[in-house]
């Protein structure tokens, strides 16, 4: 109980300024619309993006959405910074794939479509076990215990090939068991819809959780654990239950991943995986419920697409994080909410020209910078293939002065213009915010 409430709030990682816009609250009709739109997107996405790769990505996005949302139950809602969330999704995945193998052998009479629930149960059980010790603590000690447990489990995973399958992991075949209506889950698209269904339901359930007494007390524990004790709640128990629920959803996502990949290897419990959940949940925005959804989508895109597009993807990723944390610590969700607030006061239309200008100039700057980064990488990695490379269709010569000068020029121009746009935008934004504050005051006075 030595942690001051200030510490606790800081650990929750919320940006105070962004939080002020929390008041924006869609009407209930709005909520219906949002959920229907979400369902619709899940339904039609694979019809629009129909290549095999994009379907794989969509399935993985569904899985990632569940796990990132479950992670945010801890981080965003409970102020618990976990470095070991992959342990729970991973254990869910392992148990699920073992169960799948049992189904395959005919020992376990369970429809494949319910397998994720097995994963969920496994995740929850794991959380019951480890959560008992981790949730005794909050703040930094909590973070460090989860780090330790994560490292231990990962190291152990390679040592126990019986259960974890060693380097090769455990593989399985999802086309087993009963086949209701001829659904075998063999084709990716069938699996996609199963995952989409789970994603939708889990998102709904997790959102519902934020509206329950426990969900609210979890927020209270994040903000000021000390006070919570004086309104009758055991903070430890609040954290523990929430931890188990988060473990359950993480386990579901693990179970879905087991179905999707039909193989589970030790990397699913690795620290790198946990780190990715943390980074992308934060990037999406931990202070808003829907933030992690954005984060999850970006995570899959970064790992699957970006890494194919450029060898420098880790560098870009690092830079994106650096800048996001510096300039938008509330994540993408907070940027969206800020603009929604402006929109709700009918002022967004004034801004779009600025946005276009900003985006345009930023793009130019980026192009210049990326051109140079790509040339450096090319020089370093593919020098033997000759100095030429094409970057977005533009032929560049990594050893030619003209390419470099060109890139520098493009970047410098972009940067200059961007700065000009940024300044005007900043002034404009400030003015609008001022007006909005005034308007709020006025409404308050009226009320």
């Amino acid at each position, binding site marked *: 109980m030595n942690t*001051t409430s200030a510490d606790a709030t800081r650990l929750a990682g919320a940006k105070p300024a962004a939080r002020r816009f929390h008041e924006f609250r869609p009407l209930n009709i709005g909520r219906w619309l949002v959920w229907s739109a979400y369902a619709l997107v899940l339904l039609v996405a694979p019809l629009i993006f129909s290549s095999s790769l994009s379907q794989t990505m969509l399935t993985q996005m569904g899985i990632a959405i569940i796990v990132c949302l479950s992670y945010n139950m801890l981080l965003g809602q409970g102020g618990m910074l976990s470095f070991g969330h992959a342990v729970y999704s991973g254990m869910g995945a392992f148990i699920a794939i073992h169960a799948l193998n049992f189904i395959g052998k005919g020992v376990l009479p369970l429809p494949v479509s319910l397998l994720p629930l097995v994963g969920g149960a496994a995740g929850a059980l794991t959380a019951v076990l480890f959560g008992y010790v981790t949730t005794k603590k909050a703040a930094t000690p909590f973070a460090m215990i989860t780090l330790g447990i994560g490292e231990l489990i990962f190291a152990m995973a390679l040592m126990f090939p019986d259960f974890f399958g060693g380097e090769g992991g455990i593989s399985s075949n999802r086309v087993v068991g009963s086949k209701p209506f001829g659904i075998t889950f063999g084709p990716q698209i069938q699996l996609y819809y199963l995952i989409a269904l789970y994603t939708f339901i889990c998102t709904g359930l997790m959102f519902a959780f934020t509206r329950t007494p426990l969900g609210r007390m979890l927020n209270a524990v994040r903000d000021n654990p000390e006070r919570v004790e004086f309104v009758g709640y055991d903070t430890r128990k609040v954290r523990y239950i929430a931890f188990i629920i988060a473990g359950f959803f993480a386990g579901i996502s693990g179970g879905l991943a087991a179905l999707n990949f039909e193989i589970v290897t030790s990397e699913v419990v690795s620290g790198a995986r946990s780190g990715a959940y943390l980074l992308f949940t934060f990037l999406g925005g931990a202070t808003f419920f829907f933030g992690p959804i954005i984060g999850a989508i970006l995570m899959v895109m970064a790992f699957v697409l970006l890494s194919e597009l450029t060898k420098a993807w880790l560098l870009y990723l690092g830079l994106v994080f650096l800048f996001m944390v510096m300039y938008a610590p509330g994540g993408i969700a907070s940027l969206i909410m800020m603009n929604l607030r402006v929109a709700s006061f009918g002022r967004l239309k004034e801004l779009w020209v600025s946005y276009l200008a900003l985006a345009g100039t930023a793009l130019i700057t980026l192009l210049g910078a990326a051109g140079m980064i790509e040339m450096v990488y090319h020089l370093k990695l593919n020098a033997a293939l000759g100095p030429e490379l094409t970057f977005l269709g533009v032929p560049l010569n990594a050893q030619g002065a003209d390419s470099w000068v060109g890139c520098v020029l493009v970047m410098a121009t972009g940067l200059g213009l961007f700065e000009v746009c940024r300044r005007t935008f900043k002034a404009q934004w*400030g003015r609008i*915010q*001022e007006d909005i*504050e005034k308007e709020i005051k006025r409404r308050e006075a009226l009320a």
Partner: protein
Amino acid sequence: MLHIDNLHAFYGKSHVLHGVEFEVNEGEIVALLGRNGSGRSTTAKAIMGMVDCTGTVDWKGSHIRGMKPYEIAHLGIGYVPENRDIFPKLTVHQNLLLGQKGTRQKGRWSFDDMYGMFPRLKERQHTEAGVLSGGEQQMLTLCRTLMGDPDLIIIDEPTEGLAPKIVELVGEYLKKLKDRGISVLLIEQKLTIAMQISDRALVMGHGSIVFQGTPETLRQDAYIRKEWLEV
């Protein structure tokens, strides 16, 4: 010594001080009175360079507006913030140590002076300041600032949460400061000691000075008291 003219201060976009002007002379206790939210603390922060402001703030004849807080502190202005900003994880002694600006320079005040002033602090010397009682914390902040050997000390609501006897004690010590040639800008809202010890009183309302005069005149000016100090 301290001369303030046409001072405007802002929190982001909200304009809090509207052209404040007053002076504090050498060896003088000036009380700055006013209701909650009238802008007294903001004035103090503006002098210390802790908020955005425009206008003139002169100290011993040189402009100090726009300087960093630590530079201003080095010029000899001490600030005792409101709401007891003690450093909770440091011991009482360490808190006092941080009041000193450099390790070398010898000031008017020693640790012993401080402990002599409030024996309670001496007893609690090696305790974490965070667990001190509310009143003890208040004493500590005052002493901490004195350790920096200021020529002018700005005290924001020092008697808050102090037992009546201690309030009186603080009043006496402020007078002692004055005797040692230190100027005091005392921010208060309960008139109790302010009226007794100050040489001059200022009343602030809505971000500007609405009254200047001796405590005596203020006591007589029922209108000002009613309009700007009480309900």
